């Protein structure tokens, strides 16, 4: 291929080389390689601007003064770091954090713990109806949550009287989460049968084989699915809107943020400061767990 060993920055061809036909061809190839290098990287920089600039503008507005946020100027005159403190001290903001951590933390632990044995059975056991079970998992994963929301709400609100609390959001995750099951199974399929068979010959029961042999190997997949689940809860807007909107003491960050904008109708700077504060943890976690995220996405799409 043309993108051989040539450094794109090395000047190609000398005058002497150009004298021969071979030298000219080589120089042309080199020039093409340089041009292509420049084209690819300028395109990449253009794309990078598209992905980066929204973050930049949001951040710049977050540190503007109230007056300036109402103008068209893009660069802050003064850097109002106090905006973040103002948001932090908004009534309710800390409660939203606590609720979000509770919902995401507890939900993730429950979902992963309950999905592991299911994924294990679907990947490693042979039984009648396994394909049907797998199809049900995929169907549940694809089913829009709004399809069953009306009876689900009636169930939680009328039968159990738990609307306005975080329970309807958290408890369902104790019974396996379709996406988590799917992702874990995709990974468990890649673990060779020899390991489980060896454990069985050594006299391990199925449960011990799963816990002692397979799960240690599945650590990256468990980490990836836990991260995905945590962010699903962190980002969830629909669930909180249905179950806790009537009780501000149970709001989560994603739901609260919107009402925050309602209370600060004209204050784009404070709204953007709050937006930054909700995006920030996600970005920080991503930098620490980049590999797990990328592996997780790949597993959902490519395997097989």
């Amino acid at each position, binding site marked *: *291929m043309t993108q051989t060993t040539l450094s*794109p920055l090395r000047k190609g061809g000398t005058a002497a080389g150009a004298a021969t036909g071979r030298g000219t061809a080589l120089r042309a190839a080199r020039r093409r390689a340089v041009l292509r290098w420049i084209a*690819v*990287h300028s395109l*990449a920089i253009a*794309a990078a601007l598209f*992905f*980066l600039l*929204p973050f930049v*503008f*949001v951040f710049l*507005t977050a540190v503007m003064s109230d007056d300036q946020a109402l103008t*068209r100027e*893009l660069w802050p005159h003064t850097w109002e770091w106090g905006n973040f403190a103002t948001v932090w001290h908004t009534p309710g903001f800390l409660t939203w954090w606590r609720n979000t951590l509770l919902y995401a933390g507890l939900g993730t632990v429950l979902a992963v713990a*309950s*999905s592991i044995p*299911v994924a294990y*059975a*679907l990947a*490693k056991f*042979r*039984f009648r109806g396994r*394909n049907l079970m797998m199809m*049900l*998992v*995929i169907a549940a994963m*694809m089913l*829009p*949550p*709004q*399809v*069953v929301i*009306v*009876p689900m709400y*009636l169930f939680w609100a009328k039968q159990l009287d738990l609307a306005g609390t975080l329970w309807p959001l958290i408890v*369902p995750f104790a*019974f*396996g989460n379709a996406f988590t099951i799917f992702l874990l199974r*995709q990974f468990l399929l890649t673990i060779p*049968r020899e390991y489980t068979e060896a454990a069985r010959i050594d006299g391990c029961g199925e449960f011990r084989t799963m816990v002692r042999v397979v799960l240690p190997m599945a650590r990256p997949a468990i980490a990836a699915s836990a991260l995905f689940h945590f962010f699903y809860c*962190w*980002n969830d*807007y629909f669930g909180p809107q*249905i179950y806790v909107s009537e009780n*501000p003491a149970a709001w989560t960050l*994603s739901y609260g943020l*919107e*009402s925050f904008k*309602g209370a600060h109708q004209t204050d*784009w700077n404070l709204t*953007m400061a709050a*937006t930054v504060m*909700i*995006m920030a943890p996600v*970005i920080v976690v991503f930098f620490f767990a*980049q590999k797990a*995220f990328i592996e997780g996405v*790949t597993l959902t*799409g490519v395997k*097989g």
Partner: protein
Amino acid sequence: MTTAQVSSGQTPSGRLSPGPRAKRTGGARRAERTRRALRTLGFLSPWLVGFSVFFAYPLISTVYFSFMKYDGFTAPTWVGLRNWVYVLQDSPFFWPSLRNMLWLVLVMVTCRVVFGLGIGLLITKVKAGAGLFRTLFYLPYLAPPVAATMAFVFLLNPGTGPVNTILGALGLPEPDWFSSASWSKPSLTLLALWCIGDLMVIFMASLLDVPKEQYEAAELDGAGPWQRFRYVTLPNISPIVLFAVITGVIATMQYYTEPLVAAKVASGVIGGSGQTFEPGYPDKSTLTVPHVIYNLGFQRFDTGAACVVAIVLFVLAMIFTGFLMRRRSGFMAAED
């Protein structure tokens, strides 16, 4: 019912031949089989309970309520097909929401797949700072949808938004974005393109899997870049493209948070709980099918009509899920 249809396409596999154990006595074999069945059930039990309580039961209730008049307070009464007639004929929201869905499927899903593939191709060609670019392209995907939508409503706000400021400075027209019925869906598409990270990673992984020899062979035959893409890359990644299209369509069917938050913030009609909000601002242009379910079920307390819309959504989603399972056996099987 679509599930049954799909299963017929599946090869029956995973049956154990009874061979080696045929010698044992019937009783021991039966005991062993029971033990295995119980073990399997034990491992599957969380999901069996979860599926029954959180999918099967509410799904059946949805069908039941679609024939009932029920406001959530007084006892439900049988009204036959009246809810269906209301939704299909008289509801001002149902058909606009379906039309929006069609627009989003045709335009937004197409743009996402093309752009995701483009970014995936670009990232495999970048030599300098590839890791940095990849991180940057992926990051917006993780931004909470509410936060990302608020950010875009701000960025694109017609008065003081940075985007129109820049467009104005360049002497270009300044659209009304989320405040205009003809620009609101393109604005949502722009937001969706910003959050393309997942597709980019999937395309990137599949592009790296295309065998190098095929490119070399094509090059020896004198194929240019476009021909290499058309005759080598595309055939190799077409299953992933199809996967991206179908999951994109399914995601569009559940599209909820972004258009709702955009409509609320852009219209300025938000003020905490209990406030009713005419969905789809401006002029029903951001209305999606899930919004109609929410509006009917939770704002108008018309449970029956909400369930009718839910059933329509269910049928559409299952048709596409069926496609997904049929066309991509890898998604399902991957036998050991």
